């Protein structure tokens, strides 16, 4: 039995820095919340084209995004923490994307998957938005056309790192407010 436990590859998150004694453990609320948030992100998939297919592979059993605490996709922006933009965003779609972002509650993160979402990609043309960071702030960019699921997972892990180490009151910080203001978001 003891051997079996030893062999298991299941990892449990390491505990944050803190004071430990017999029967108590004291740490910052921030770090505990960060841990909880990072490992239970609810992503909202905004998949518009080919990169969306890679995302489907990422979600499916082989790559299994659920391993990272993303068992449940949220198709309502109001309940989502992470906006995953995957695919070409036409200029006409821009206001919709922005509205989805505005409807998300804080804390919220945005991952931009694929060349199209990051920069317009191969579609340097009048009808395509040249990168979603023109209308909403982006936390992590995943390059590639399309990026393969490993890359998407890598991006997600980066988001988790952000979630872990960000102050739980990030939304009140002047930098964050200034960032949103620069996009015209209140």
């Amino acid at each position, binding site marked *: 039995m003891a051997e079996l436990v030893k062999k298991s590859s299941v990892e449990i998150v390491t505990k944050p820095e803190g004071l430990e004694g017999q029967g108590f453990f004291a740490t910052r609320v921030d770090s505990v919340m960060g841990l909880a948030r990072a490992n239970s992100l609810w992503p909202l998939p905004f998949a518009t084209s080919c990169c969306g297919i890679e995302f489907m592979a990422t979600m499916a059993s082989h790559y299994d995004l659920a391993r990272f605490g993303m068992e449940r996709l949220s198709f309502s922006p109001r309940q989502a923490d992470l906006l995953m933009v995957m695919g070409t965003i036409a*200029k*006409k779609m*821009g206001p919709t994307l922005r509205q989805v972002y505005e409807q998300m509650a804080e804390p919220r993160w945005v991952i931009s998957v694929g060349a199209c979402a990051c920069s*317009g990609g191969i579609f*340097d043309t*009048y*009808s*395509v938005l*040249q990168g979603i960071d023109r209308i909403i702030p982006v936390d992590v960019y995943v390059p590639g056309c399309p990026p393969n699921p490993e890359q998407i997972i890598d991006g997600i892990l980066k988001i988790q790192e952000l979630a872990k180490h960000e102050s739980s009151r990030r939304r009140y910080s002047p930098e964050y407010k200034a960032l949103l203001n620069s996009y015209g978001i209140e």
Partner: protein
Amino acid sequence: MEEFLSKVHAVLNEKFPGEVLSAELVYDFPVVTVKPNHSHAILQFLKEDASFNFHFLTDLTGVQTADEKELGVIYHLHNLPANIRIRIKTFFSITKPEIKSVTDLWPAANWMERETYDFFGVKFQGHPNLKRILNVDEMDIFPLRKEYPLEDQTRDDKSDKMFGR
């Protein structure tokens, strides 16, 4: 097909003298080019005449000629019972891109004319709701006209020689 084409040509010439510019077979497809002023009447005739009966509008689209001086509107008509198709072309100056709308003949033309307006700036007179349909409303160009560049003009990171700007 040739017989049919010469019939169309003869009948149109008789009904609308001087309006038909050319009638030819392109890959076995009858194509008739007409002057723009009476294109509506010609289309109406083709639709309502019992022997032609082109009552179905398959497609309507715009085009700009290679010399960039003219715009065109192309109509694809279909007679479903006899399974005969015909293509009607009409060209007019780009400085005065106006033509009569055919929405009164085929309600299906509504969105297609809006699309043609959206991309080529053809003003369809008599259209009930002529506004952009596919592009953003704020757009102030007609993107498929050759005078406007294809690329997005708001990028500043592609100005080096590699991208040929």
